[in-house]
């Protein structure tokens, strides 16, 4: 029986404002499709609606995706798809998608583009790049490049970093979780993974696992027999569901942690055997903490959490058999962020919850072999500058705010003249949007690879339409440490319109750029000139690694097949093609209840592995740079808001992924615009009612947003979700809905990892 209803809106895709001179008559499937057809093709894929990857099967009928279902083979995603995962179909069939290569005609930001062929687009980029790199005498770092998508990031870096040679790569880490990764790495020598399912007592600070879903953590929390304690300045869904909710002043979680450490040491609650074996400089920690007198009473004055509760929870935590202080993220909040994340790691360590069940585990991830490429050496290339003045910083992803600041103030050691931006909505993703705009306007060339006409895309000179994740195969990925698995994103449907996968885009670009850029190097690079003299031009080019398409000699399917079969064998490859996933127990995994599976048998999970590591209490490098080598409280960390002002904090809805899902026609039905959460008593006194428009003013700018008076937020705090207030008219569903947090957030960053501190802006409000 075959029955596909096609009626709702079989809209013909016509010219959009973004693409004035372009038109096409490619039919789009309707918004939702009902089908009773049996034997449709089920293509295993990996979701990309957020950074967290879940596995699913796409039902494909006549090259149309009619439904997405969860993949029960994937240990990480536990046979579920979230609302965004389910609504990914709408991302594929979004009528506002970028469809063709475009070259800017009007001013940056006004959205006037002309449709061009891929070759024209490459040609345009080539001409500009040759000129720019020539001007900069082959300092390849004048071309900055950035990426906001988890998949293909390494390949993207190989192209622009290794092959093109730029040192200036930026990613979302410095506006996301670098402090957490850094704090864990520096304290226990690894970023680890948290065994939520194995923990019987869990404390979460701020991370909102029931609205910002992370698999398997969010799912495991639902089923684990554990006590859950949540600290948050807003009563989130996670707080509602917690066994105990501790309302806390924004940015003061560190004081709570310090007090826990103080009580644990003073009352000797910590795991003495563990500390003795693994801790380095425990005496320094002990002396420091005790001398600072971080008592519960003291912490109460900072956090607003009653001292008695702090004491009781500390006792309960250290008495539990598998306690875990969950290392959450939800961006970087304040200047003490790194110290706060480190204090959480230390608490876990004091409880002995490292490298064991229910703690931070090291596990045994599968290490995939790298595809080797030949990297050219550019002797005129200068190193990155965005980590100047930052203690550690991520050598990989850098510091966005420091980078931007140096550009717009002309204090960078050399000019950055071009920027390649892939799936990274700069105009929405970091505080102070005006500054981002200024930075982009200073570029001679901005190229955007994306699927949507985002606020950033409309600032580009050249837009290269990438296909969505359901239209492409990607390289195999290794997931998790406790129950490791491999997963492969297969191609569900062919790329729509003229969009291409990143690999195909880079391949085309590489073909166009390799020789002309080599010539620029040959002009300026003494080492290369020497090499040409010795080996001849051709050999210098090939053996020097100047062929930028080296990685793309084979198509992605062939590359995957070669890589996987070589390392794991054909059976694993077949499983990845058929089921999208492979793990050693895939044939014997069993359903425990209601479609919920046990993947690795308990005794086979990598709770504890052999590893030599130390818990570093004291970080000398920090002291050298004038920061606390052991987490400590400084007076300027105190939560203080002037009278009549508010501290604004951000987060997101369960149905949104930052600004990436803003235009999703399905998801907008749940959250069409964001509201400003304001304490109901405060709102009463200001005469503000649900839905009233209020102006929110900071030192940066102001926004207008609807109010939501609620008892679920502290009196001096305001909350709004990130990802709204889209400026690009081309995003027809999202344009003009709600307001953007980054319009008003002040662009401050902490100096240990160079991360933007998102919760340090005070604002005033006015009812309109």
């Amino acid at each position, binding site marked *: 029986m075959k029955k596909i209803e096609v009626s709702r809106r079989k809209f013909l895709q016509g010219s959009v404002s973004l693409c004035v001179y372009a038109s096409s008559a490619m039919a789009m499937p309707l918004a939702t499709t009902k089908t009773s057809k049996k034997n449709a093709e089920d293509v295993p894929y990996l979701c990309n609606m957020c950074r967290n990857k879940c596995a699913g099967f796409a039902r494909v009928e006549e090259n149309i995706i009619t*439904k997405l279902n969860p993949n029960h083979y994937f240990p990480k995603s536990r046979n579920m*798809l979230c609302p965004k995962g389910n609504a990914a179909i709408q991302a594929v069939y979004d009528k506002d998608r970028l469809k063709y290569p475009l070259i800017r005609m009007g001013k940056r930001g006004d959205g006037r583009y002309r449709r061009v062929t891929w070759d024209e687009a490459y040609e345009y980029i080539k001409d500009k790049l040759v000129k720019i790199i020539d001007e900069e005498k082959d300092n390849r770092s004048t071309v900055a490049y950035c990426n906001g998508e988890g998949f293909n990031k390494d390949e993207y870096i190989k192209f622009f970093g290794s092959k093109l040679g730029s040192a200036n790569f930026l990613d979302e880490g410095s506006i996301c979780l670098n402090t957490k990764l850094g704090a864990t790495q520096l304290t226990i020598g690894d970023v680890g993974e948290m065994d939520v399912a194995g923990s019987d007592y869990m404390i979460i600070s701020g991370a909102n696992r029931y609205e910002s879903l992370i698999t398997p953590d969010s799912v495991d929390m639902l089923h684990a027999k554990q006590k859950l304690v949540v600290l948050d300045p807003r009563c989130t869904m996670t707080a509602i569901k917690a066994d105990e909710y501790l309302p806390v002043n924004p940015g003061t979680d560190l004081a709570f942690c310090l007090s826990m450490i103080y009580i644990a040491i003073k009352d000797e609650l910590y795991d003495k055997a563990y500390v003795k074996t693994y801790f380095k400089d425990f005496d320094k920690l002990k002396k420091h903490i005790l001398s600072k007198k971080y008592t519960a009473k003291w912490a109460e004055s900072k956090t607003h959490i009653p001292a008695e509760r702090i004491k009781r929870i500390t006792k309960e935590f250290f008495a539990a058999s598998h306690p875990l202080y969950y290392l959450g993220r939800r961006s970087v909040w304040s200047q003490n962020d790194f110290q706060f994340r480190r204090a959480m790691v230390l608490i876990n360590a004091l409880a002995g919850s490292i490298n064991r069940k229910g703690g931070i585990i090291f596990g045994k991830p599968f290490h995939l072999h790298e595809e080797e490429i030949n990297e050219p050496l550019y002797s005129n290339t200068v190193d990155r500058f965005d980590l100047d003045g930052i203690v550690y910083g991520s050598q990989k992803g850098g510091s966005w705010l420091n980078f931007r600041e140096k550009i717009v103030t002309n204090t960078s050691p050399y000019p950055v003249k071009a920027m390649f931006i892939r799936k990274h909505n700069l105009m929405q993703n970091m505080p102070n949007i005006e500054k981002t705009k200024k930075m982009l306007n200073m570029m001679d060339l901005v190229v955007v690879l994306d699927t949507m006409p985002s606020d950033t895309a409309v600032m580009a000179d050249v837009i290269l339409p990438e296909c969505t994740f359901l239209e492409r195969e990607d390289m195999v990925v290794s997931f998790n440490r406790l129950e490791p698995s491999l997963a492969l994103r297969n191609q569900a449907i062919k790329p729509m319109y003229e969009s291409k996968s990143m690999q195909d885009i880079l391949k085309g670009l590489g073909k166009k750029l390799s020789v002309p850029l080599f010539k620029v190097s040959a002009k300026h690079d003494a080492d290369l000139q020497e090499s040409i003299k010795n080996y001849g031009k051709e050999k210098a080019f090939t053996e020097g690694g100047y062929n930028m398409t080296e990685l793309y000699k084979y198509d992605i399917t062939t590359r995957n097949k070669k890589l996987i079969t070589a390392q794991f064998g054909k059976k694993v490859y077949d499983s990845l093609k058929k089921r999208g996933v492979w793990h050693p127990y895939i044939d014997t995994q069993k359903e425990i209840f209601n479609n919920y599976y046990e993947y690795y048998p308990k005794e086979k999970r990598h709770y504890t592995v052999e590893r030599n590591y130390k818990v570093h209490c004291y970080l000398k490098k920090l002291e050298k740079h004038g920061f606390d080598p052991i987490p400590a409280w400084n007076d300027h960390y105190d939560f203080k808001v002037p009278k009549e002002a508010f501290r604004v904090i951000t987060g997101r809805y369960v*149905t949104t992924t930052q600004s990436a899902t803003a235009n999703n026609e399905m998801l907008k039905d749940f959250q069409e615009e964001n509201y400003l959460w304001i304490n109901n008593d405060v709102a009463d006194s200001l005469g503000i009612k649900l839905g009233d428009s209020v102006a929110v003013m900071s030192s940066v700018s102001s926004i207008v947003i609807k109010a939501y008076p609620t008892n679920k937020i502290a009196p001096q705090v305001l909350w709004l979700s990130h990802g709204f207030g889209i400026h690009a008219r081309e995003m027809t569903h999202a344009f003009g809905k709600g307001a953007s947090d980054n319009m008003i957030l002040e662009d401050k960053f902490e100096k240990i990892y160079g991360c933007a501190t998102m919760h340090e802006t005070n604002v005033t409000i006015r009812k309109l």
Partner: protein
Amino acid sequence: MANYGMAFDYKLCINCHACEVACKEENGIDLGAKNHRLWIQEDALVKGDFWDLDRSEISFMQMQCQECQDAPCLKACPNGAIYVDENGIVRLHQDKCDLTRACMEACPYDARYVDEKNHVTDKCIFCADTRLARGETTTACQITCPAKLRYFGDLDDENSEISKVLKEREHFTLKPEAGTKPKLFYLK
């Protein structure tokens, strides 16, 4: 031949809306917030002052057609368009529906709405004409649920998971005073 029902471990719900999106995509429901076969409602609210909130009463309830064994909608339909199918699911002969909306008026659960695409009244039918028709054994909402709180199966089969869970755990139905004998159960 079965007697399908559903049980909800409702306290696990985190109101993520995955079920609703999956349902709309699976069953071709029109987009638009007002069109839905199922929804989650927030029972009670978080009460009190922010620093001392009472979260004890709030829960999130899975709402949809309750599959009444004594269905008011069926009795109210002037055209006999509503029937119980061989799997015990209250269904609609679409060609007989005249959109009097007597069924909407009669339903105590607000389960029905007007499907503007097909010009009939519509409600949850356990994916009977999509997933079940294709021989699958789960509903779209059930399989996608992160909490796996939706148990779906044959109430007449003693060995089905839903029968077992209903035997093991206390449960209740909605608006029992309406005498509709729902086949949707909420696990205490």
